[in-house]
């Protein structure tokens, strides 16, 4: 293994962990511009030096922002790739786009249009993606501007079914040309301009605008549109519904764990106390579903969870680091045989967590190690300040003096991308650090973290990535139908 290999492996891992956490939004310690600039540099650096690995990152659990950014960069610089590379890239891009949320893909198409990327491959990718959409009429209504832009840019033919020839095209580009549409959804949109009843046939986001135009009361609107809402929309309007006393059911057991944690943290403390049983039950259920077959298999686990003031996040990512820590807490409780959580503030009640106080990570680590766990998970942004650097020293001494055999496997998960260092902030060189966005990825990240110890070479990493890529591209063909169904359900309610 040469030095060059090590550097390459390190670079790629650095990028992957950045791509998991960074979203180009403002963070607690750095502003949005700094984050974007730093991330853009990282993308350019990895794309130029390790193009195949850059594309392969699409197969990993990187976040949607970076996935879209990678697709865009790959398409912009298609000329730099060989034929073979292009083929793999094409497969990866198609597979990834199928998993991205539709608004994000339309935004990507708009960015491609703005960047004047209009080669044959880009057009084919746009065409294939649009053709695979389960309900073009829904897209036309819900993502009108996006679909219009894509159709214009890629010269899409929108008349899929012969009996409705040209209807979609007319709907997008000349809606006044037809007296009525044969597709029910398109016609509902037309009628919704003057008929209140038709509003409730549309999807929630579109209907919301019409409701405002018609002056429909919030409570009545929410109750009647509720069947059309997606899961996340239901979650989002919960508090709005509560203030207007509208009934919007929510099945918390089906919600993603981290979203649910973020929702809980957004509630006032009094509400959390009043609804303690309900909220705890929902979080536990979500965690149990995420853990699946792995529940109870991790043995003795200790977790050091950061709830210091810096987990406030920013205006864009409100309490995100704390939400991740809270979700990890519930997930670890399910995965572990016996479990001990340690919050940095010293508080014991996870449901009432709020960002508070400094980050005495070092002392909490000592408490955690005293528990003699098989696995120790640290969820923190890595700004250890009371006193600074103690956590790193404790881990170093523990690894080099007290636990040379590695009885305890320690992993640090960091939910925040540090723009200045082009990486997630590490606690110690002895302990692998992985970026984390959703607690749901925790088991996979713990796997990936073993590469981050800095002792694995490029060949091993490449083998791992190839493996993931194969699974990803293959898995897509099997899962696309199912995924399409969820999108459809998500879109139409």
């Amino acid at each position: 293994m040469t030095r060059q290999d090590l550097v390459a492996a390190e670079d790629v891992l650095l990028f992957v962990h950045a791509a998991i956490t960074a979203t180009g939004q403002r963070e607690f310690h750095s502003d949005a511009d700094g984050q974007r600039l730093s991330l853009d540099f990282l993308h350019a650096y990895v794309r130029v030096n390790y193009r195949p690995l850059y594309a392969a990152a699409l197969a990993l659990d990187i976040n949607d922002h970076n996935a879209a950014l990678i697709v865009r960069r790959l398409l912009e610089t298609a000329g730099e790739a060989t034929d073979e590379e292009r083929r793999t890239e094409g497969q990866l891009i198609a597979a990834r786009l199928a998993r991205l949320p539709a608004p994000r893909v339309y935004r990507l198409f708009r960015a491609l249009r703005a960047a004047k990327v209009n080669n044959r491959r880009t057009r084919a990718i746009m065409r294939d993606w649009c053709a695979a959409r389960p309900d073009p009429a829904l897209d036309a209504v819900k993502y009108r501007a996006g679909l219009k832009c894509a159709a214009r840019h890629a010269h899409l033919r929108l008349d899929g079914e012969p009996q409705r020839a040209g209807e979609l095209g007319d709907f997008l580009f000349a809606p006044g040309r037809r007296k009525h549409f044969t597709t029910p959804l398109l016609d509902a949109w037309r009628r919704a301009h003057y008929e209140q009843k038709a509003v409730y046939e549309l999807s929630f986001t579109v209907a919301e605008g019409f409701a405002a135009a018609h002056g429909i009361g919030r409570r009545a609107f929410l109750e009647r549109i509720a069947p059309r809402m997606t899961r996340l929309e239901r979650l989002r309007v919960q508090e709005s519904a509560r203030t207007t006393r509208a009934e919007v059911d929510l099945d918390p057991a089906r919600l993603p764990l981290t979203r649910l944690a973020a929702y809980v943290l957004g509630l006032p403390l009094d509400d959390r106390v009043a609804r303690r049983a309900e909220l705890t039950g929902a979080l536990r259920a979500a965690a149990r579903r995420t853990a699946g077959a792995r529940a109870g298999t991790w043995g003795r686990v200790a977790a050091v969870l950061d709830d210091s003031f810096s987990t406030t996040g920013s205006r864009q990512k409100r309490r995100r680091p704390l939400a991740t820590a809270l979700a990890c807490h519930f997930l670890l409780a399910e995965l572990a045989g016996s479990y001990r959580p340690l919050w940095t503030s010293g508080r014991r009640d996870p449901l009432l967590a709020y960002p508070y106080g400094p980050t005495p990570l070092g002392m909490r680590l000592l408490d955690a190690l005293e528990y003699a766990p098989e696995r120790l998970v640290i969820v923190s942004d890595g700004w250890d300040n009371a006193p600074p650097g103690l956590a790193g020293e404790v881990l170093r001494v523990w690894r080099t003096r007290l636990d040379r055999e590695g009885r305890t496997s320690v992993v640090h998960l960091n939910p925040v991308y540090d723009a200045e260092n082009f990486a997630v902030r590490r606690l110690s060189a002895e302990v692998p650090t992985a970026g984390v966005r959703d607690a749901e990825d925790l088991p996979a990240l713990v796997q990936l973290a073993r590469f981050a110890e800095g002792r694995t070479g490029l060949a091993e990493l490449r083998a791992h990535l190839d493996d993931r890529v194969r699974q990803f591209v293959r898995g897509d063909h099997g899962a696309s139908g199912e995924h399409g169904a969820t999108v459809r359900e998500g879109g139409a309610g």
Partner: protein
Amino acid sequence: MSGLDLSGLRACPGQVWGAVRLVPLVRAEPVTDLRLHREVYRDEPAGPVTVRSGKGTYCSTYVPHGFVADWTGDGSPAAAYGSQLGDGRGPVVCAPLHFPRKPAQRARDKGRPSGGASGTLRFLPLHLALDGYLALHFGGPSTVWEEWTRRAVREGLSPRAERAYRGEAVPGLDDALRVFEIHPGQCGVLVYVADAPAAAFVVPHPDDYRALHPSLLQDLYGELMYQYALYGGPVREDPVRLPDAYIGSLAELRSAAERRAAEWAAQHAGLMADSWLDASYDVRQVYRMGRFRLSRFLPPFALHRPQHIGEMITDGKGRVVYLKTFRLTDKQVRRGHVLHRLAAHDWQVGHAAEAMGIGHRELMRRVEHLGFEGLLKLHG
């Protein structure tokens, strides 16, 4: 002349952001019978406020915010009056302040019985201290009073002026205060810029600190601090090092970590003593409220040492309950020094120069250079 008594406050590990280091001071037992809160005066965008004291007397000054001290006479807890969040009081339009003759004033329009067991005092942070500094021997030599009076009538008052920077103008201070993680029980902070002591701020109660933490941004800082922040660059965070050779068990690791923390506190206390506690101050009492005294202090104006002017509230035993300091720049220290020396020798330039070990001409040059030639033109 006396020092500051900061007993009861413990320094915790500082937090570094760019050139700014903030060292939190934690109070084991908060003071409950004196509370501070803040009044925001309406001046958007920040500009001078004209304060009227009746009878045609005006004073224009920059008043970013004022502090209101609440105390009870019998030692029972005072209400945290207004330091609660969201009490919804609008900004005070124009406070009836007598300034600069009386920078501290009892707040009257609070619907509270004045002179009862409990009272409130409204004062402008740092103005007491600056006032003390600006008025330092401002009366000048008694022999030129007549000349001064004539000039004041002819040209108006020409008060001494000093420049200071608002906290917002000090580069990086806003971010440092924003990302600072307030400790539980924290009642104060020491601000270092490029590791030079810039300001100390102590309040009686942790809740007050939480409410007043952002007010550090609206305080005054000397020009030196502005330059240090601009050119000082990032200061090093000194991370803990543990001697791994002597650690054989987890218990030893823990005791080593705790020892480090204690050592750090002792080290910092030494540093702090150097710049704040060591010096002997000229303390003047301004106001008395129950068992507390509001006073301002001036440093000894020894040359080439960081020195602070400031104001404080002390309790019956002389312990500091409230403290706010302003770091003087070297030039300001020199001014104070020369004024002190001249006053000590009854404004006889010859005697003063002799005592300072320099020539008459040199002292005149210094006085001129410091902007005081008006004081000595006739007299010298």
